[in-house]
């Protein structure tokens, strides 16, 4: 599958929502934990060798599961392959929890659900659709009907 790698690399250079040095292990068999810089930008998690400017990889954070594993450790896996886990070991339990929370909220789909929720709540409270003033109430991405996960 082709993709605009150049733009993705450019995205990796943007200021991150969250960045840290952690130990990371790929789902490949026999992989070991390696020190990496991980950087969360929009719905991508980039990972770098700690002394390099260009990421070695990127994970799109849609349709993924963020799971607390053992102490200081969480994993990211994808719904179609739940056994393949990217593991991350943090410096502390606190850091681990922060990352879990941040990553759970990092998907476009999550934001969409939040938006629909807020829209619905505001509408219930005020009787008005808050999106109307922006003229975007009809857009497909903001619709209130139940969406399949």
């Amino acid at each position, binding site marked *: *599958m082709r993709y605009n790698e150049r733009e993705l690399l450019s995205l990796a250079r943007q200021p991150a929502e969250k960045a840290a040095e952690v130990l990371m292990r790929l789902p490949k068999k026999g992989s070991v934990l390696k020190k990496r810089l991980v950087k969360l930008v929009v719905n991508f998690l980039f990972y770098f060798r700690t002394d390099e400017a260009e990421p070695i990889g990127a994970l799109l954070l849609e349709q993924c599961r963020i799971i607390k594993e053992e102490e200081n450790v969480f994993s990211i896996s994808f719904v179609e392959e739940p056994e393949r886990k990217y593991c991350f070991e943090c410096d502390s339990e606190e850091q681990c929890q922060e990352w879990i929370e941040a990553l759970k909220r990092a998907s476009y789909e999550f934001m969409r659900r939040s938006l629909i929720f807020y829209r619905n709540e505001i509408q219930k409270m005020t009787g008005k659709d808050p999106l109307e003033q*922006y003229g975007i109430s009809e857009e497909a991405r903001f619709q209130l009907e139940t969406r399949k996960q």
Partner: protein
Amino acid sequence: MKLNERSVAHYATCDSPADHAGFLRKRVERHHHHAHHHHATSYQRRWFVLKGNLLFYFEEKESREPVGLVVLEGCTVELCEAAEEFAFAIRFDDAGARAYVLVADGQAAMEAWVKALSRASFDYMRLVVRELEKQLEEASKTLAACHKSPRRSSSSSRKRHLSNPALLPLQEKPDILENGYSTWGSGGGVPGGAACPDRDGGHVKPPPLPPRRRSAAGSTTGSPVPGLSPAMTESPVSPETACFSKLHSWYGQEIAVLRREWQERQKRGHP
């Protein structure tokens, strides 16, 4: 750079709803090493699917895997003065980046695509979510402010409380859209810890909304540190404030036009 392509391809074809889809002709880009080479411009018809900030394209509508992906974050979408009618281009800021030139079947299709793609960024979605968070908070406060007690905490903790309970349950419970209301307490009230203790039953007609703060989303951040810190509801910290002010003025114009139209419709519909 590696990408979790299998998962990305799965996202493209899974049953999460697409924000837009349709056939477009995509201009084939040839790499010119010598400026004077001329190749006839050709186009390939592809099935395009927009999901979030990702534009996928497939050889056929029924194809099981996309042939390509355009990550749309940071792009601009423009009408194109190509030889083709109904052409538009997706461009990126990066000097030397190629543009994606796409051709729609007609005027309406072109406009629909341009509109959908212009609003596809994660940043835009985030902006709207933050704005709604603010509005929800205002509406809650207005409802709860039966007593004018100025317990108006400006600390982030109160606001965080507002945003966190909303966000956590959404992730944990997939059917939160139906159940979510009940986790916020009965009768459309204010969530748990931040609730005004004198909240009234919630079934009283709410007072009129406070005047809209036009600059609600426009507070300058000044801070070079972007990011969704706990103060995320306080100011829309965007990694690209340049992009933000563009967005802001663009939407400002759009809002003005649409507001007028809406008001006219209201006049016609409601005397």
